[in-house]
Each structure stands twice: as structure tokens, then as C-alpha cells.
């Protein structure tokens, strides 16, 4: 009997659901056209290229000579691209560069916006706080072209930094042209651009802290530093952890736009990352290897996808907020 009841109930629920769906469709039918432009752009410029991933499993198709479909069908199926990807020391080096630059960015740069946010929140004078925030947010809105251009001059042999070094008796350093300086510079420039802007999320988290906590601590005679350590940091810890998880999700993205502007033949050894390599190989000025370039891009994309999905899952499950 109960099984029968359940079936009836399920049936009813299903019908109800269907009815809701149909009435939803009827009520909202006139809305569908407004979704179409965005969906068409997404389909054409994001989903259609996903089919192109198949190129990774082909011998280098000759798109120069034939049209897309013919070039594609002429090229034979192969796993060679992946064999090369996992054995070519050059490619493995670039994958390594990507990871090293990315990890350096996270380890060195991740804590700094938190410190900056704490400092900004301790400022009582509203005007001063606004001026400082206006100053530190600005670099975020500049393009990497502009920032690399600016730092090319700052770090030039005759620029201010080298002037300072030589006036203290040191030797000038050709910062932008030395492989050993590339990674530190990527981190420094990235920090200059983003530390200020990244502090916003922490500033707003600190604003949300219940002020009675501080008052109680002040009555107990806790010092400012102690209050920061014992109240501010623990209170914003969930935000910090969520941001860290999300940041780790973007591990495979060492920053194409930045690295491409900074890279030159002298720094390729330490500076070429997956993104710039994929571009140079697939769309650069030399002979284009579409198959291998797509394979390397796919490898990067799949790992990123796993990392981002994982990061979002953990962050949603443990802290209730995620990337989306």
C-alpha cells in the first residue's frame, strides 16, 4: 500500500512540476528573445571554439592552404601532440615557469593586501583614508602595456632605480634584460598593480566586524597590535581562506597579458609561460603548429578547470560562498 501511495505521490509531484514548468514557460515566453543575443555570442565565440579542441588530436592541419573543414579532414588523427607535450624538455620548462611564477605570486603577494586592508581600516580620518585608497587603487586600472612601459623606464640603465644604485656605489643592473630578474620583476610589477585593489574585499570584511568586540578588548587594555591579531584577523579569516582557495584555483594562470608585455628573447628561459608559448607556437610569426599549440592550451585549460571547480566546491561547501 505504502509503495503504491508513494508512486501516486511521486506522480502527483511530477505532474505539479511539469505544470509549474509549463506555466513558467507560458508566463515567461516573451522573455526568451532577450536572452538570445548573449547566448548567441557565447555559443559562437566560446562554445564553437570548444569543438576546435579536436585539432589537438590531429597532425598539424594546414589551415593556410585549405579551408577549415578540408584542412581538418585531411590531417590524420594522432596522439603525437600529447606525446610531445609530456616529453619535450622545452615545453616542460615552460610549464615549470608557469607554476613557479604563479606560486611566487601567491606566496609573496597574497598576504600583502590583507596587511594593507588592516592598515587602511585603522585610519580614523575619513579624508586621509579616501586619499590613500584613491592612490593605491589607481594602478589596477592601467593596462599591462602602460605598466611595462612605465617600469621599462624606471628600471632602465639610466632610470631612477639604477641612479640610486650607482649613487650608492653599486653597478647598474639591466633589469629587463636579465633572465634572473624576470620572475622577481613579474611579482613586483604584479604587486604594484594589484595589491591596492585586492585589499578592497578585506577592507569591507573588516568594516563588517562588530565594533563591540574592540571596545571590550580596549577595556581589557589590549594593545592595537594585539587587537588586530586577536580580533581583526580571526574575524576575517573566512574571507582570507575563501580568497586563498579561489586564488589557488587560478594557479595555471600566470598572467598572459603581463608576461607577454615583459618578455624578450633574453628572458624567455625563465619567463616563457604556457600562455605565451601557446600564442607564439600557434599564432606567432614563425611556422604555426596549430595541433601542438591547441594540445598545450587544452592541457592548461583542463588543469585550470579542475582546479577552479575544486576551489569553488571547497569554498562553497565550507564557507557558503564561491566564485559563482
Amino acid at each position, binding site marked *: 500500500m505504502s509503495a503504491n501511495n508513494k508512486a501516486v505521490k511521486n506522480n502527483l509531484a511530477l505532474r505539479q512540476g511539469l505544470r509549474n514548468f509549463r506555466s513558467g514557460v507560458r508566463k515567461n515566453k516573451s*522573455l526568451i528573445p532577450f536572452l538570445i543575443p548573449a547566448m548567441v555570442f557565447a555559443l559562437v565565440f566560446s562554445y564553437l571554439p570548444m569543438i576546435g579542441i579536436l585539432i589537438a588530436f590531429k597532425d598539424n592541419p594546414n589551415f593556410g592552404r585549405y579551408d577549415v573543414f578540408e584542412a581538418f579532414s585531411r590531417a590524420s588523427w594522432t596522439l603525437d601532440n600529447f606525446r610531445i607535450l609530456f616529453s619535450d624538455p622545452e615545453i616542460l620548462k615552460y610549464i615549470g615557469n608557469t607554476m613557479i611564477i604563479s606560486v611566487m605570486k601567491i606566496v609573496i603577494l597574497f598576504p600583502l593586501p590583507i596587511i594593507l586592508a588592516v592598515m587602511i581600516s585603522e585610519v580614523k580620518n575619513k579624508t586621509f583614508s579616501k586619499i590613500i585608497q584613491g592612490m*593605491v587603487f589607481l594602478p589596477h586600472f592601467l593596462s599591462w*602595456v602602460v605598466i611595462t612601459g612605465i617600469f621599462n623606464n624606471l628600471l632602465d640603465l639610466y632610470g631612477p632605480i639604477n641612479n640610486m644604485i650607482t649613487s650608492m656605489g653599486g653597478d647598474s643592473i639591466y633589469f629587463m634584460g636579465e633572465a634572473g630578474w624576470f620572475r622577481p620583476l613579474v611579482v613586483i610589477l604584479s604587486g604594484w598593480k594589484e595589491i591596492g585593489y585586492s585589499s578592497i574585499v578585506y577592507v569591507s570584511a573588516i568594516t563588517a566586524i562588530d565594533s563591540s568586540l574592540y571596545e571590550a578588548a580596549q577595556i581589557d587594555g589590549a594593545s592595537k597590535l594585539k587587537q588586530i591579531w586577536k580580533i581583526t584577523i580571526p574575524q576575517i579569516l573566512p574571507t582570507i581562506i575563501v580568497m586563498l582557495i579561489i586564488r589557488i584555483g587560478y594557479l595555471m594562470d600566470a598572467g598572459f597579458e603581463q608576461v607577454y608585455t615583459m618578455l624578450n628573447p633574453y628572458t624567455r628561459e625563465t619567463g616563457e609561460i604556457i600562455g605565451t608559448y601557446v600564442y607564439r607556437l600557434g599564432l606567432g610569426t614563425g611556422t604555426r603548429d596549430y595541433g601542438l599549440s591547441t594540445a598545450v592550451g587544452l592541457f592548461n585549460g583542463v588543469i585550470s578547470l579542475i582546479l577552479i571547480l575544486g576551489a569553488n566546491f571547497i569554498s562553497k561547501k565550507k564557507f557558503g560562498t564561491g566564485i559563482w
Partner: protein
Amino acid sequence: MKKIKISKSRYKIKESPVFHAVNYVLLTIIGLLCLLPFLNVIAMALSTANLKVDFWPRGFTWFNFATVFKDVNFFRALGISILVTAFGTALSVLCMYMAAYVLSKQDFPLRKGVMIFFIIVMIFSGGMVPNYIVVNSLGLTRTVWSMIFPSVVQVYNLILIKSYLEGLPKELEESAKIDGASNLRIMFKVILPVSKPCIASVCLFTAVTLWNNYTNALMYLGTEESLYPLSLYILNHIHSTPDPINFTQVDIQKSNIESAMILVSILPILIAYPFVLKFFAKGVTVGSVKG
């Protein structure tokens, strides 16, 4: 609030002047570190080449600006950038607003599915070569459209607008519906006006993104230099090495001229910047993204 004030006066609270003094000094230094590089750019743009320029012009000259203002290619690139930014922003924000409006309806069927459809766009891409092949097959490479169309879908903006719309009172729309207004009318005459702060900030951020972007141009324009936007034009200038045989004054002044170009190119952003800060003050963009 009053109670707290009383308690403050009763238990003398220890203020820490040293802490605050150090904090103010450090923040001032950090702020200046963000601005000093600009001072160097200005100084460089007004200096003669091969002089050690710190933060004040040396061998003062207008030559660099004069060269930039005489450069026809520079102005064409500037025009392309303005065109791409203006049209691209309008198209992108319009598409994202309309989609966000639909997806903000709780009873819209397949709402979840469509959201996933867009989120996939955000987290996975076919990669550079497949993107290039699609754009090329559509005949869009070497056209301005290649800098606009691939950037129309900005999922982050979509989510931002959607959460804003979800926070609006339902009565707005219901009363308009009772008056017999069509969806189109409600969307643009009722909801859009009250969403102004959100839409304006999304417009601003999209515009900055498009203005700064050079990857689309790099990937799709090839050698079509007459269509290069300002960002790519300056980047190529920076990456170029002057011909060592026919070394002209312009070549000698290379990095000084680049500084002048950089200053002209960031002018629109500096003009828009007070508005950007205003949006931050209103908290429009912070914390509005959630599931």
C-alpha cells in the same frame, strides 16, 4: 550607540598614538610608491634622451609630445580604441543587462541551466588557436569586430547585474504589469532607471577592460596595422628596436616618446577615475557577487 559612548568615558580607553603615527607614515609611503612612477613618466616625456631622469625633467623639451601629436598612426590607433571601447561597452552591457534581467526572474524555467551555460564560458575556453579559427572562419580577422565580438559576454558582469536586479523590490514590476506594460517597456523604462548605479559602474569597468585590452587585437588583427588599437600600437613601439643604420632623433628619443604616448593613453582613465572611486564609495561593486 549612546551606551557605548558612556562606557568609553567611564573606562579611560588607551589610545595608541605611536601605532597610529607609524600607520599614517607607512600608508603615505605606500600611496606615494603608487604615484611616483607616474612622476617619472611625466619627467621622461618632457626630457631630452640619454639624460638620467628621476622625477624631474632634464633637458626640458616638448619634442616628445610634438612627435606624438604629429604621428598620424598614433591618432588612428586612438580613434580605433575609442570606437572599440564605446561600441563594445554599449553592446556588451546591453546584452548582459537583458540576459541578467531574464535570469533574475525566479520563475523563469531553465534558469539554473542557462546560468551554468554562462558559467562554463567563464571557467573554460577552447584556447587561442580554436578561438582564432572560429573568428577567422567567420571572416572577422583583420576587422574591428574581432576586438569587439569575442568580448561581448562578460559573465562576471552578468552575475553582478543579476544580483542587483534580484535585490530590487518586486512591486516595481508588478505595478507596471498591472498597467499592461510589455516586457520591453518594463525592462528599459521601469527597471533600467532604478538600476542606474549598477549599470553605470558595469559600463565603466567594461570600458576600462576594453580600453586596456590588447590580446584580441594581437590574436586577430595580424599585420593589419591600420586597425591596431592604442594599447597594441604602444606595445609594438615598446617592443620595437630602431634600425641601427638610419638612427634619427625620433629613435634616440624612443623611450621619451613612449612616455608621452603612455600619458596620452591613460588620460581617459584618469578622467574616469573619480567616477570609479565614487562607485567604490557607494559600495556598488563590492560584495554584490554571490551564488
